[in-house]
């Protein structure tokens, strides 16, 4: 894959792009203590969030977690029950949707069925009263960007799902909005097309320098495209961090469980100090040690979260200095080519741990098989200590 000009130009900038770490940076969008109630139901519960210019931000959560409501409030289709939204310093309260410098790509695409592709893309530009030649030029540019030039004269019902999605995208970026909102943009596409489009979205964002806010329930999608992810649950923003941090440093059981696969070992703190916390397992028999700066007081209930690929498994005994060693039996095994996933039932408990192994050699003298007795262990710094 060759580098595109925009990638060449913006690549290095991109790598060091982290304005949220800079205390002097002024965010483009600020949600301040946003609450939204529908009758008795609290859809969004006291959410505060800053999004910076040129950021690709994802709101991730299961359906009904309030992510779409939060986005619709930014677009102006819903109004917060309390709290304040500002965009580039301007309070958006009372600004109708048609005067907000944000554009949205709808989940259903919401293309105008009585207009051609061209007219759909031109719709927003016409509202601004741009001169005709300029509109035509901009529409042509947009159609070129999404590779839909041959379909300009078609009506939406004459297009495939993927093509409609591109029309919707072209229409939403035609006005060069300050912020582009994408509501489950890739949900209706098949896997291959989705992956392609994810990369196209990222390229586009680099090329146009827009700020993207994307709503999705697909964690893979969020991980691929985002600079930062906000994980939501029951109307609350649970964690806001980069994809890497979300994966490696989840701040609670919910996030750990929602993103990827994880083993949660429930236990009680035995002692803490000296850069490590000792935990006695409750659902998994054993004494565990976890690397942590400041641990909770002894006696408090915690969970050790360990990703499957950070667990080690072997038929032979582990090295003598290994920590957190468990024994068990292989219950299930899935060979996936690059990885093999093992489900291991731990002796003396109901616990089943998920361990994945990279298949780094083509052959093995004695591969692990069903019903094998195995040793499982993980390093102290492989585990994340979760208190909530």
């Amino acid at each position: 894959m060759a580098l595109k000009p925009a990638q060449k130009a913006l690549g290095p900038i991109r790598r060091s792009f982290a304005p949220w770490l800079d205390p002097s940076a002024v965010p483009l969008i600020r949600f301040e203590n946003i609450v939204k109630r529908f009758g008795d139901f609290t859809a969004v519960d006291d959410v505060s969030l800053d999004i910076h210019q040129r950021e690709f931000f994802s709101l991730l959560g299961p359906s009904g977690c309030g992510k779409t409501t939060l986005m619709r409030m930014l677009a102006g289709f819903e109004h917060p029950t309390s709290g304040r939204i500002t965009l580039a310093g301007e309070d958006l309260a009372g600004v109708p949707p048609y005067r907000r410098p944000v554009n949205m790509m709808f989940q259903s695409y919401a293309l105008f069925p009585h207009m051609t592709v061209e007219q759909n893309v031109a719709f927003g530009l016409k509202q601004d009263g741009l001169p005709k030649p300029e509109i035509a030029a901009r529409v042509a540019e947009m159609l070129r960007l999404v590779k839909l030039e041959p379909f300009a004269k078609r009506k939406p019902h004459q297009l495939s799902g993927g093509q409609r999605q591109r029309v919707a995208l072209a229409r939403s970026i035609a006005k060069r909005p300050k912020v582009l909102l994408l509501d489950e943009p890739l949900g209706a596409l098949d896997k291959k097309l989705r992956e392609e489009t994810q990369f196209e979205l990222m390229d586009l964002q680099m090329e146009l320098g827009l700020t993207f806010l994307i709503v999705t329930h697909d964690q893979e999608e969020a991980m691929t495209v985002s600079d930062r992810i906000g994980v939501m649950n029951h109307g609350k923003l649970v964690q806001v961090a980069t994809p890497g941090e979300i994966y490696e440093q989840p701040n609670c059981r919910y996030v750990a469980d929602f993103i990827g696969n994880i083993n949660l070992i429930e236990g009680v703190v035995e002692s803490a100090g000296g850069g490590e916390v000792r935990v006695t397992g409750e659902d998994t028999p054993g004494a565990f040690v976890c690397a942590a700066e400041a641990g909770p007081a002894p006696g408090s209930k915690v969970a050790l979260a360990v990703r499957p690929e950070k667990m080690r498994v072997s038929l032979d005994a582990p090295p003598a200095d290994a920590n957190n060693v468990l024994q068990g039996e292989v219950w299930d095994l899935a060979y996936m080519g690059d990885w093999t996933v093992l489900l291991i039932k731990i002796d003396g408990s109901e616990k089943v741990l998920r361990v994945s192994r990279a298949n780094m050699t083509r052959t093995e003298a004695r591969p692990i098989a069903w019903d094998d007795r195995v040793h499982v262990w993980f390093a102290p710094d492989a585990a994340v200590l979760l208190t909530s």
Partner: protein
Amino acid sequence: MTETVASKPEGTSPWGRRLVVAVPYLWLLVLFLTPFLIVLKISFSNKVVAQPPYEPQLDLAGGWQAVKDFFAGLSLDNYYAIFEYTENIEAYFSSLKIAATATILMLLIAYPMAYAMARAPKTIRPTLVMAVILPFWTSLLIRVYAWIGILDREGLLNASLQWLGIIDEPLEILHTEIAVYIGMVYSYLPFMVLPLYASLEKLDETLLEAAADLGCPPWKSFWQVTVPLSLPGVIAGCFLVFIPAVGEFVIPELLGGSGTYMIGQALYAEFFPNLNWPGACAIAVLLLLVLVVPIAIYQNVQTKEIEGRA
């Protein structure tokens, strides 16, 4: 449209299928085409004082000669006769004018009604549709008579306006063209409201959100999105009321005065007082020809609409 290859399902005889298709065709043949052909034939006949009041009659017992005589007896005279009376021509034109004006009035009244119904909370929409259909539970004739009671010099309307002190003298509404319009709009309004409601109700509201999102204020998105997308309903509603309104008889007869003479009344006059069945049939056939053009347009739009959805 994709071309569907008609594959013969196993175990179904072609006769079974033909039988299923034959039933509606038979229905149309017996109850629509046959009566029309009879009317057409009578329109080419001559008026006589007899039972039935026209000739020639086809008598197959007379053999080939009788058939030849029968066709020789037919003529276009009744059609020429229509044009000899300017009254008839004026009746055609006034029918078209009244029907067209009433259709426009109904569109103007029905659109906001249908719009409000389609935007009403989902739970009360069936009730509103019910309310629109409710008048049909009473006979049209009785409802038109009721309007006489309302519009009369001493009727409900004049009495209330005078009681309120808005007018001193009673308004002359009954037996004027205004009364005909009131009657037409009242009687046919549901046929305009329902297709409009149907097309407005299925309008996807995210389209209006999308329009707003792209910088289009609500009053503009109404014209740029709502109206174009409800056009099939507008067209269906207009033809549904225009076509029967042209041939309307009861309303102009009961509510109209000497100033309104519609083609339905001309038809009635020929049929009953004049006992001129051939003349009446010629008027009816000519009316049908006049209406074939709008009916064809309507059919065409409907077909396109169905294709567009597929």
